[in-house]
């Protein structure tokens, strides 16, 4: 019976747009995930009902009548065994295939995605938005982080943290790519309404993308255990109509410009000058001691020893912290390692700066 009730309730929609099993589907690929879920669900339910009905019917029908009952010797049946070995195989392959197709969609961000940096840190999320040129005016990037202090006075209220922590703000109807890393332990960024989840790992970058067609607000949970306040590491995704989003982001950039605080690429630019990077790396495509850094992000590079590497956030980070690990072919391994010299925010800034160089 416990299986039957949810079976009936599977398709019943709730007032908030969710269903008995799944929360509301609010990203472009959520419905595809749900379709796979329900394909497995109804296949499972059919198998469960058949197996358990057979078990219960036989347990009743063949209940022991007397201590002298005799039973026939049935050691097996090759046809039957072949059927229950082969028939489920087709269904399993179908499940794999549907899951694989859905996963590929979830794994490959569209080329025109808007990029936001997500940084996990015990026990809060920081969102970094890129700089932009608006109406011919250069505006810096900015950071969204922290919680509303007044709101945080609601001690003991389980909805406090999800309502008080700063949300990540994204435009509706536009693909958004999150490039994520952690500054301490593992975290995981989970948006149930989007069916999106990815671990956030220190020392490497992971990515997650989604497109929310409609404006609205959606929960963000940390789903990788990260210590004391893991169960409080909430945020929200606030999806705004494009025009409202544009107004919001411009306002934030102008505030950042006014405050003069350096984040992301701007911090990187300042470090690039102050740490003496320009002494070896030029930004006009010509060679100095080390390779030039402009227009390199996303391209392939040949390494000493014959291997090739795609220049992504992870490679840039590694090459700043441990330059000797993967040296570009034709250059001496002479750069000093910056492991322990730069903090995470500074490394992230340099990576963002190098990414922004055209």
């Amino acid at each position, binding site marked *: 019976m416990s299986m039957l009730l949810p079976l009936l309730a599977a398709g019943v929609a709730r007032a908030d747009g969710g269903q008995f099993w799944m929360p509301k589907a609010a990203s472009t690929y959520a419905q595809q995930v749900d379709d796979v879920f329900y394909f497995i669900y109804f296949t499972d339910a059919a198998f469960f009902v058949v197996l358990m009905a057979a078990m219960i019917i036989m347990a009743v029908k063949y209940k022991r009548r007397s201590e002298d009952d005799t039973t026939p010797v049935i*050691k*097996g049946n090759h046809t039957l065994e072949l059927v229950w070995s082969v028939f489920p195989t087709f269904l399993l392959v179908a499940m794999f295939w549907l899951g694989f197709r*859905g996963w590929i969609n979830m794994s490959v961000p569209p080329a025109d995605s808007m990029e936001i940096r997500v940084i996990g840190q015990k026990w809060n999320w920081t969102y970094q938005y890129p700089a932009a040129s608006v109406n011919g005016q250069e505006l810096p990037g900015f950071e969204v982080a922290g919680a509303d202090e007044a709101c945080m006075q609601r001690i003991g209220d389980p909805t406090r943290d999800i309502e008080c922590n700063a949300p990540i703000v994204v435009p509706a109807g536009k693909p958004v790519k999150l490039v994520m890393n952690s500054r*301490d332990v593992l975290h995981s960024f989970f948006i149930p309404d989007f069916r999106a989840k*990815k671990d956030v790992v220190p020392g490497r970058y992971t990515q997650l993308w989604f497109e929310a067609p409609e404006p609205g607000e959606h929960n963000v949970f940390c*789903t990788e*255990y990260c210590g004391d306040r893991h169960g409080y590491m909430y945020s929200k995704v606030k999806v705004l109509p494009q025009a409202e989003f544009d107004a919001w982001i411009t306002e934030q950039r102008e505030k950042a410009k006014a405050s003069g605080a350096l984040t992301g690429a701007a911090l990187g630019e300042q470090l690039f000058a102050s740490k003496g990077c320009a002494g070896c790396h030029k930004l006009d495509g010509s060679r100095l001691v080390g390779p030039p850094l402009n227009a390199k992000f996303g391209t392939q590079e040949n390494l000493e020893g014959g291997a090739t590497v795609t220049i992504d956030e992870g490679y840039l980070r590694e090459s700043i912290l441990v330059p000797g690990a993967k040296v570009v072919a034709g250059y001496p391994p002479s750069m000093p390692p910056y*492991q322990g010299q730069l903090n995470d925010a500074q490394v992230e800034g340099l990576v963002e700066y190098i990414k922004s160089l055209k």
Partner: protein
Amino acid sequence: MSTSTLDGVGHGASGTNYLNAKKGLMSWLFTIDHKRIGVMYLATVLTFFLAGGLFALAIRTELATPAGDIFSAAVYNKLFTLHGAIMVFLVLVPAIPATLGNFLLPLQLGTIDVAFPKLNLLSFHIYVFGSLFLLYTLVTGGVDTGWTFYTPYSSSSADGNVVAALTGAFILGFSSILTGLNFIVTVHKMRAPGVTWLRMPLFVWAIYATSVIQVLATPVIAITLFLLIFEKIVGIGIFDPALGGDPVLFQHFFWFYSHPVVYVMVLPAFGVMSETITVHSRKHIFGYTAIAASSVAIAAVGFIIWGHHMFVSGQSELSGTVFSLLTFAVAIPTAIKLCSWIATLYKGSIQWNTPMLYSLGFLWIFAIGGLTGLFLATLATDVHLHDTYFVVAHFHYVMMGGVLFALVAGMHHWWPKITGKMYNDTIGRVTFVLSFIGYNLTFFPQFVAGSQGMPRRYHQYLPEFEMWNQLSTLGSYLFGLSLFIILGYLLQSLFSGKAAPRNPWGAASLEWRTQSPPVEHNFEGDVVCTYGPYDYEAHRALKS
């Protein structure tokens, strides 16, 4: 066969048995009798199960309301860590192989003991020694890393207890390896005349497959834990990115052991099912070879699917795809077993007694556990469900429900043989109904909370998940109560239970041919096996 007494004839009350042959505490602690070692394991495992279970009830009590109001977050995190670590390392891994396995393996093979009796005792002593480390962490404030010890949280933690807990788990591994080794040699070398490979009970096949996994996989977790201890003490960067290590590498190492170990827990449970379902239906097992081969197949495939724990960890899309495909391969042998057990019921003579009810309960629970695994093997759905309560419910259905219902079925099935006493079957059947309802009420709602998005290991949660958590908490109290009732009437049977006959269920396998409880050296004379363990025809012919 030279032992002439079969079913029901004499119960050996006149003579000595393994329980009363020697007296005193030392005669137990330093025994090399596999039966006594099995009984000591059973007592120890059940004690730890009580501890782990009380932690579980504490967790469910905290989760009865959304606010984190009963324990602090730090205490709550220690509660679920200790619950997991105790249940996995001290309870589920040895739950069936070291208890029923130790007791039954030589008896079912018709021999006097395991191949290396002193090594067997050493395994038990190592198990107790290792458990002392976990007890030490328990009394000195606990650990909060989660039983998975994920890096860099565990490696960067300043808590000295983490090293103690890791050392405990490291030592416990040796107990597991030595037991596995002992059982493998026993199966190869100690079978009585006539016990051919295909006349071994399926419980023996299951224990054999389990032992292979224990010997091959446990060294990997031992090395992993050692590297982590090494990193914490010496500061060499292996897993911690701050030292130049890779935290995802730890997950690969960890699951390379910890996925196969799920089969260390559950294959013996399958073995118990193959015995109880046949005996209490008085039917030859349906598809002996298929069930035996599927145990071995599950053991083999179990080694190459660890990556399905890591679909969202940052491992490559290609790895995820390969691991998903391989994971589906393990569903086939599992489905074969389930279908074969149910087919065994056909035209049987089915006893509705306590061991059989728990066996049917196992089939229900394991069907749900197995079928919900398909959502997690599938890439697109796993992304949503990973690390939510859906996963918690799934692995409790498989590991805890599966193993516990099988262990309880097996304890009721072999209790007359182990203790020489019969328990009150009526109370047993009533308690089954209670525990079955309690179990499903505890864990089924967690599937819904999880698919709605509730993450695991949360000290507080959003009010929208409250109903599912309250059902779960209610169920856990009911389930806990039913386990205490089982403990009560089983203990009571030791004092006032009727004496058990040799073969109360009319079983055909060898362990029922000796008296209950068995003599010190298992059988009164030499054993020659002339028919298979499920050949009730031949068994009856010989009896009459």
